[in-house]
């Protein structure tokens, strides 16, 4: 039963299409889409045939409907083509016809430039990274391959540059942090457009700790020598140094922040006391102070 139904339906559809085809043929019209449309530039769609019709333009951020006459070019304004992507032009008179076309991004006028981190410890491998994405004036990602120039400069060192091609609209780099604390300026440039970011390079972990101390009325006063990282940069104030005093009665521990490069603490103890210091993974020297 189903097979016979399908056969009858097939015949029915052939007949209907044939009749409809006669009508469509008389009204047939062609649309020719713009071949290389660019965002923000006017374009036109060529049409053939004649008579009034309704024109629709469906794009990534727009839907347009207006009356047109077939046989005349349909003008598309720059504003209608600002978004890059696929557009569908549809013309309906008695039947509807459509044609699709792409609008390419315009030239880059801005770079989105993401740089990390904002504060970087010195002398760390691949510590600083940046990602640059070029956009045109209509916020379309520019996908055509181009080269982004990254320039790095800091006080006391020669500027360095690195170029990277965009792939899929993205260029990136990573690099070691410098040896000296201070501002690292990074500029990304493409086609005369540039964006600048600053990374604050700060001292890395302390490289070594040297402490000294003396007895006073309240116990023992101890302090570090100026605390520096392995490249000689003063470790930032606020970094914690832990002092530990051991005597026959037990252990006394004090956490002290570095102020102006030096950490100080007052420890309790009696008799002979062994005092040590640590910051992060770095251990300092031990000092033995005798009892009174």
């Amino acid at each position, binding site marked *: 039963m189903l097979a016979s139904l399908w056969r009858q339906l097939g015949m029915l559809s052939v007949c209907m299409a044939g009749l409809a085809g006669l009508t469509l043929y008389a009204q047939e019209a062609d649309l020719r889409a713009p071949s290389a449309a660019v965002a923000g530039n006017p374009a036109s769609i060529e049409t053939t045939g004649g008579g009034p019709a309704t024109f629709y333009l469906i794009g*990534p951020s727009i839907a*347009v409907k207006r009356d047109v006459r077939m046989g005349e070019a349909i003008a598309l304004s720059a504003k209608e083509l600002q978004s890059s992507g696929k557009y*569908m032009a549809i013309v309906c008179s008695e039947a509807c016809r459509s044609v699709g076309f792409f609008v390419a991004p315009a030239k880059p006028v801005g770079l989105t430039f993401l740089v990390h981190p904002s504060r970087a410890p010195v002398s760390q491998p691949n510590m600083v990274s940046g990602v640059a994405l070029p956009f045109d004036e209509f916020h379309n990602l520019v996908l055509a391959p181009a080269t982004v120039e990254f320039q790095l400069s800091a006080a006391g060192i020669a500027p360095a540059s690195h170029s990277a091609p965009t792939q899929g609209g993205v260029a990136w780099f990573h690099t070691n942090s410098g040896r000296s604390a201070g501002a690292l300026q990074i500029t990304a440039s493409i086609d005369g457009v540039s964006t600048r970011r600053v990374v604050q390079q700060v001292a890395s972990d302390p490289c070594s700790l040297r402490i000294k101390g003396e007895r006073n009325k309240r116990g023992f006063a101890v302090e570090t020598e100026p605390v520096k990282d392995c490249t000689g940069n003063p470790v930032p104030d606020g970094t914690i140094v832990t002092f530990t005093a051991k005597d026959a009665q037990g252990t006394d521990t004090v956490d002290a922040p570095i102020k102006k490069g030096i950490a100080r603490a007052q420890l309790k103890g009696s008799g002979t006391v062994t005092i040590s210091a640590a910051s992060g993974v770095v251990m300092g020297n031990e000092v033995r102070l005798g009892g009174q």
Partner: protein
Amino acid sequence: MRASCEFYLATTGRSVFRRLAGLIALALLGTLAAMCAEPALNVSLNTSKAGPRSVESQTEKVILRDYKFAWSNLGQAMESNSTASISGLFAGTANAWLTSAVATQRRNRLTSRYSNQNHKVDAVFYAPEGDVIELHDTAEYDLQILDGGKTIHDEHVVAHYVVLMTPGADRWVVRQLQAVPQF
């Protein structure tokens, strides 16, 4: 040709349409069941080619979830001509474009219907600090454009999208959704 077709239509049309009525009733039941279920939307995500950072499995799951949700909401927004369903899954340019598309559709009494969506997505770039990911989506769907109740365009679409997503507070959001002729 015209005379024979008119004769054929007159003699066989009624019996064909009676039998069709039964089939249409069955199809209606099926359609109702389908409307109650989730709309067909499949998304697969391949992160094996992403670099320079590799995509963590938890991140991959969240991106897949949010990208699928974004397309589901885009479809709803374009069909209902309301941006209420966008729910913060689009930001920046993608959000502006979608909002503008919905507004201009509504103004012209047009609607777009996306159905049977299949998205084959490749992650091609994942930033070293994990703050942006670029996806290449080869999407297939049926697109119907309507003016009022009249269908003016009906097409099975194969489209390529370049997508930028960034992490938000509790989700990944689509910032750029740009169709291209090819990757």
